[in-house]
């Protein structure tokens, strides 16, 4: 057994494509926690996850999963992790029984009992071909198979995107249940941040291939804020405090990284707590400084 503090450790991950570079990304996911990996489409989330899973070859950097090197100890790593993608990667002509027959030969720790247990719990038919499954059913099936071989790390790439809120909620509950075991960790990428606003322990923001922020969600939400003021007052604000500002005909909304400090400095201004989505939006626009 391997002892480790962080289920995922990424140092200096770089991957170059034509027209896009994942540039020197580093962050950790502590064991027993759930990290939300947030960014726009094309920001580099999938590339990062693909690099973690060794689906693409990284150009530079070091990746450790469950304390093991993701390349050198690939085999051992993969027996203990489960990947969930935004689309069901099983052929449409197969059904759940087939998947059980296939994966029980692939994973040493596969438990048919657990798998069928989840199928029953999700009310998924065993003999129906996947081509006839709805999107929600397909995702539940993927999750059922991800949770049936005692994986210690769940890596999910946009798993909840495209699902209706009711199904998303059900799935989030399953994740929280999974995390009741302290040895389990979840890394999930999403651009639907409302799920993560509540449930994530830590978040990492990525934009255009670069890391923006990474840290405890509570800290990030507690420290950031949206300062609302008049256009005139806006001119008085120290540019150092501003991440970016959205100007309208009726005033300015400014994302600040230190809510407490700013409420002292600019007393009288309204500073609202920010959601992860707002943080993402304002950070993405940070190069523009002012935008509409």
């Amino acid at each position, binding site marked *: 057994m391997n002892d480790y503090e962080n289920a995922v450790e990424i140092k200096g991950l770089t991957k170059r494509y034509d027209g896009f570079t994942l540039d020197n990304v580093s962050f950790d996911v502590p064991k027993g926690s759930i990290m939300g990996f947030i960014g726009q489409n094309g920001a580099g989330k999938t590339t990062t996850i*693909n690099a973690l*899973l*060794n*689906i*693409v*070859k990284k150009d530079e950097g070091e990746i450790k999963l469950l304390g093991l090197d993701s390349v050198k100890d690939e*085999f*051992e790593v*993969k*027996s203990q*992790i*489960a*990947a969930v*993608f935004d*689309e*069901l*990667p*099983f*052929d*449409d*002509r*197969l059904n759940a029984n*087939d998947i059980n*027959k*296939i*994966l*029980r*030969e*692939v*994973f*040493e720790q596969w438990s048919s009992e657990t798998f069928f247990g989840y199928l029953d719990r999700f009310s998924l038919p065993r003999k129906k071909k996947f081509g006839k499954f709805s999107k929600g059913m397909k995702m539940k099936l993927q999750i059922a198979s991800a949770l049936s071989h005692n994986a210690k790390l769940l890596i999910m790439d946009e798993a909840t995107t495209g699902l209706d809120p009711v199904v998303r909620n059900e799935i989030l509950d399953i994740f929280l249940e999974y995390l009741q075991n302290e040895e389990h960790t979840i890394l999930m990428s999403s651009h639907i941040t409302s799920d993560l606003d509540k449930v994530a322990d830590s978040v990492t923001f990525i934009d255009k291939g670069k890391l923006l922020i990474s840290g405890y969600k509570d800290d990030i939400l507690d420290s950031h804020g949206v300062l609302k003021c008049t256009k005139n007052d806006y001119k008085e604000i120290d540019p150092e405090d501003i991440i970016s500002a959205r100007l309208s005909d009726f005033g300015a909304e400014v994302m600040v990284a230190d809510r407490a400090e700013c409420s002292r400095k600019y007393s009288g201004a309204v500073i609202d707590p920010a959601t992860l989505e707002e943080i993402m939006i304002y950070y993405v626009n940070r190069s523009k400084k002012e935008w509409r």
Partner: protein
Amino acid sequence: MKGLIYREFHLSRKPFIMMLLVYVIFVGMLSLVFISTYAGNLAGTEGVEEMRSSMYSQMYLYGGLIALVGTVYGHNDIIEKDYQSHWQLYSYTLPMNEKKIAASKFIVRGAFLILGMVLAFLADIIFAAAAKLPLSTGHLKNIFIAGMLYGAVCFLDIPSMLRFRTQAKNAAIGLAIAAPLFAALGYGTFKVIKFGYAEAKRLYPDLEGDAGMRKVLMPYIVKYRDMAVWIAPIVFVLTVLLMYIWAVKELKRRRY
């Protein structure tokens, strides 16, 4: 690896069963035709003996074609479908190394190929029995060579599809490479036939039409065919080995 093999067999089963049906109907019906040439409607009609032997010398080709091409057919599009369904992507997250992934594909395709060859042989044996003619070893040799060559192409298809991902692209590139080869082959055949006619004129001036050409060329054809019986399997085995190495390399390249 067992799981992967099960998966590929399971996905290829429908076209295989269809082909089996076609094969059974084809072989069955032709056998009945053969039998009817001496025990049924056609018995005693003029030229029926020649018809029977000429049928026997041709029909085994069709039976062989159905068997060989039909058995592997269901497995042909598996790689394209794997890419489309993202299974290929998913398989990289499994505790499975590239050697095993490649091996599973080779094993499945190899199994289909062997089955195809067995069925092709069987067709010829059944026809010989139905036609009450001696089993032609020439036929069996031809089937064997065809199987080896077709098999080599089938195995070439595996790493090629891994590389090019869609059958359209794969076919286009295959044709681009094969076209000059076929052109050369066609030209060569043309030259050989021309030579045959020339020689026939010289050696057998009284034989009409292409009978003389055939007489000239036949010994050569048989000679080279018999050589091919030994060469073809060697080519086949070498191809399989090289293709396996390429397939593993291709999987390791992780082009995503």
